[in-house]
């Protein structure tokens, strides 16, 4: 029997009336009040997410930096202690194992933060690549993670920490006390809004969760489920593994070329394949799709031009912020042009749509 895991906040979600679903091997809250309301709260005020299902892998030792560089397509030289980079991780053939964040504590101590559904696969992959004298620890069960996202996030968090949050720039982190608990606080997120991701020990999760909800409520904070997490990341054009990225989709095809360092001397698994793919030219590309006819483009729906298949939808949804039906698609490169009129096949019927740029939503930066 396959046992689903629970985060330390499971009981809190149930108390708050969450609808629970399976995601990435965990029983997770998909919504509390409703996806659209929750989505809008994050765009306008702030939302609190339990993302303790995410995996954390600790890498320590003299060879740590070199080892991680071998695993990731981005250049690890870009980070120093207190900095974070986003990177795909590839197979030799350029297909994607996962996408992850690398936290640099020092040159011999890093964290890899990976997708829940991939934690076990990544762990096996990473171990199989180990040649260096390094220590690898899967600390996923010991670490809980909360995401506090939205324009009010900093104001809310500042109430319960002596850390000066203003000093944490985008993709940086510091360690210190939050609600009296040892924490790692980074200015990162998966919503397209300003905000933080906070890592704490599993046993501190309930305390921090309730303290944040308590102190945040007067400023409009609400708990947010995975349903809105998906619509928020979708509008912001952020990839979701299993949709925009997979073993069959390279990071170049997913439009993540700025996170693939083919030019410097760094060497990583999949570099040759990705270089070759770039040299011969991409056969398909990521594009945005906006429906003209009524209908919602959904994952897997075929896209046609003059009755010929030219690609498919990797993620699609009604966009609560824009009030439109939108999709992210993988299409033939020669058809990938903003303004291109195409059809999305919805229940075997062609429905008119047009190619648009991604991201669909970009917040105004103060």
């Amino acid at each position: 029997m396959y046992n689903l895991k629970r985060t330390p906040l499971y009981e809190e979600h149930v108390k708050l009336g969450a609808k629970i679903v399976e995601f990435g091997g965990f029983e997770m809250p998909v919504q509390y009040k409703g996806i659209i309301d929750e989505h809008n709260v994050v765009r306008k005020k702030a939302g609190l997410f339990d993302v303790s299902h995410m995996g954390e892998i600790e890498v320590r030792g003299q060879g740590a930096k070199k080892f991680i560089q071998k695993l990731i397509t981005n250049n690890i030289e870009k980070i120093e202690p207190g900095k974070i980079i986003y990177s795909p991780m590839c197979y030799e053939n350029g297909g994607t194992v996962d996408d992850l964040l690398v936290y640099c504590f020092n040159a011999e101590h890093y964290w890899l933060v990976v997708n829940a559904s991939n934690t076990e696969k990544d762990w096996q992959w990473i171990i199989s690549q180990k040649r260096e004298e390094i220590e690898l620890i899967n600390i996923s069960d010991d670490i809980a993670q909360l995401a506090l996202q939205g324009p009010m996030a900093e104001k809310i968090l500042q109430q319960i920490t002596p850390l000066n949050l203003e000093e944490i720039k985008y993709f940086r982190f510091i360690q210190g006390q939050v609600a009296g608990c040892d924490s790692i606080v980074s200015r990162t997120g998966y919503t397209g809004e300003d905000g933080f991701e906070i890592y704490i020990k599993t046993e501190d999760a309930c305390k921090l969760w309730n303290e944040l909800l308590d102190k945040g409520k007067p400023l409009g904070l609400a708990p947010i489920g995975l349903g809105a997490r998906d619509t928020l990341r979708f509008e912001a054009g952020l990839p979701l593994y299993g949709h925009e990225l997979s073993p069959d989709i390279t990071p170049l095809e997913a439009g993540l070329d700025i996170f693939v360092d083919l030019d410097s001397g760094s060497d990583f698994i999949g570099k040759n394949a990705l270089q070759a793919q770039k040299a011969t030219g991409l056969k398909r590309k990521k594009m945005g799709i906006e429906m003209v006819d009524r209908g919602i483009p959904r994952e897997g729906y075929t896209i046609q031009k003059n009755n010929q298949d030219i690609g498919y939808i990797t993620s699609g949804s009604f966009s609560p912020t824009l009030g439109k039906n939108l999709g992210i698609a993988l299409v033939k490169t020669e058809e990938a042009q903003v303004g291109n009129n195409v059809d999305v096949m919805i229940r075997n019927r062609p429905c008119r749509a047009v190619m648009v740029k991604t991201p669909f939503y970009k917040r105004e930066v103060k």
Partner: protein
Amino acid sequence: MYPKNLKYTKEHEWVNLETKKIGITHYAQEALGDVVFVELPEIGVEFEAGDSIGVVESVKAVSDIYSPVSGKVVAVNEDLLDSPELINQDPYGKGWILEMEITGGEEELLDAEAYQRLIEEE
């Protein structure tokens, strides 16, 4: 939640045998979550009980609407095209989906009590 004057199906549709209106139940709208799209059949089309007569989509889910009875579509609720959320707000009232001229299939329908039992088991 489950008015006595309506009949129900195992697939969570309701039908009012007096007004001939059809919709989805409170249970169905709650399970779906925020409804953001409704696909309605054309007026005049004939269906057998159990045929797919339309589609309701929430943010996360796509769900067929099955005809509770056999008959011909005589009206559809066009308000749903611009305001699909009516299905969440008022599933037995403003959230009705279509009206049929019923020719049969009523014998398979559940009364409110039987439907209530069904969803308690789910």
